[in-house]
């Protein structure tokens, strides 16, 4: 059977073209990705983002039928927009439907920043102002200060995928402040994964992305070392034997 080592049920906003591509690109032998789409609009308005909670349940019931070992709710704004309790509720609901532990991108974002011990971060997003304010609030409520936020300021979520990796690289370099301990690139539609390694080398601090953080928590939940060497320090940590067990136990409790 495909996915004999682990099957990931991946829920993506219907307009998203980046996340399933990147999840497949890094999937190791024996891991398969099974996608269901979350119905919604393409402009990321508050109404659209709130409606994803209901629509994601439908997608979870579809992907439940492959008997996934973990479910990933792959949207950053769709999990932080209404705050930490909302994110947790989405997580609990999808787990109840799919019978698998659920990772949300917003949850993975906070988990990876907390695991790194970061309290002050710079953030890059493609979002408009209202969504950016909600993101800062979400982080603040969980003890993380946003030092600087840089945005591509684009309403159309489909078009976020057209932003080239080199533009993301440039944006991160342009906005990063000496005061930040790490950088987080939000939005699973942004093609950040392939420039994370370069950014970490050139900046000398951890740089995380939405797709990467989601994958990290998914592989933690699966208990699999995917041996991903070129997508940033976070995913490489999954292959550091001495750290793995203790971190995995921490995550198992929170998932």
């Amino acid at each position, binding site marked *: *059977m495909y996915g004999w080592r682990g099957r990931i049920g991946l829920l993506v906003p219907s307009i998203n*073209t980046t996340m*399933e*591509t990147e999840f497949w690109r890094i999937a190791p032998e024996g891991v*398969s990705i*099974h996608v*269901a789409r979350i119905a919604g609009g393409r402009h990321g308005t508050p109404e659209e983002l709130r409606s994803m909670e209901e629509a994601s349940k439908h997608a979870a019931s579809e992907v439940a039928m*492959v008997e996934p070992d973990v479910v990933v709710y792959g949207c950053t704004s769709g999990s932080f927009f209404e705050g930490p309790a909302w994110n947790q509720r989405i997580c609990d609901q999808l787990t109840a439907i799919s019978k698998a532990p659920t990772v949300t991108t917003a949850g993975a974002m906070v988990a990876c920043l907390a695991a790194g011990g970061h309290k002050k971060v710079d953030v890059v997003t493609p979002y408009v102002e209202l969504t950016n304010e909600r993101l800062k609030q979400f982080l603040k409520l969980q003890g993380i200060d946003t030092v600087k936020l840089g945005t591509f300021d684009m309403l159309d979520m489909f078009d976020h995928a057209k932003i080239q990796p080199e533009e993301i690289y440039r944006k991160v370099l342009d906005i990063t402040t000496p005061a930040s301990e790490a950088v987080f690139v939000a939005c699973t539609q942004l093609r950040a994964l392939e420039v994370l390694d370069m950014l970490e080398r050139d900046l000398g601090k951890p740089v995380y992305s939405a797709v990467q953080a989601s994958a990290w928590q998914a592989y933690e939940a699966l208990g699999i070392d995917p041996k991903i060497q070129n997508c940033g320090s976070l995913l490489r940590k999954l292959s550091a034997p001495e750290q793995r067990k203790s971190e995995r136990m921490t995550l198992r409790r929170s998932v």
Partner: protein
Amino acid sequence: MARIGLLVPSSNTTIEPEFYRALPPGVTLHTARLFLTQITPESILGMVENLEQQSRLLASADVDVIVLGATAPSFLKGMGYDKELIAKIEAATGKPATTTSTALIEAIRHFGASRVVMGAAYDDKVNAIARAFLEANGVTVLDAQGLGYVDNLAVGRLAADTAYDLAKRIDRPEAEAIVLACTNWKTMEVIERLERDLGKPVITTSQASVWAALRIIGGMPDVRGCGRLLRDIGAVRVATLST
């Protein structure tokens, strides 16, 4: 760069990995799911109800083609049913569409085969419908044998050697090609070996679905390791250019 939109039965665990295995660089896959647990006529008809809505979700990702990657659901009501479903998807989305059954017929014609043998994961009931669909489309089915599965998830658990074994068992000299049906049945990795061992084209439903999607997109290089059908894609183009 091109994007393929794939509609899969919700319980299918095989077709997404098999598509990924075969895609040329620059082509990405985007999936939506249709509810299906049992490969029975009743269960399949329910699945089709959701077709237009899920097709629209794929269209919102601006895919270049939509493939209904399910065999039984696209032949269930016989000759022409696949074309009805294509019309439904195209009307709902404005995107070109195809189905696995359509692709299968086109692939058989591509090889100019009029007599085939068919192996499938299905039970006798669905197998008989599959056979009737091929024959209505002008293909003589010399023998059709199924493994008897109704539970779709169980089909996904079958190892690819079950496809190899069944193909070898049903082959006969008069057959011009071998058809292996069901997109949840692992077949991609045994196609090349079967073609070498039996000396004739082997067409599987996942392989034909990839092929049909790439042909609609056009301008594709040949794909290695997935049988003659996909290897021919680039060759056909070269032949066209040289004439």
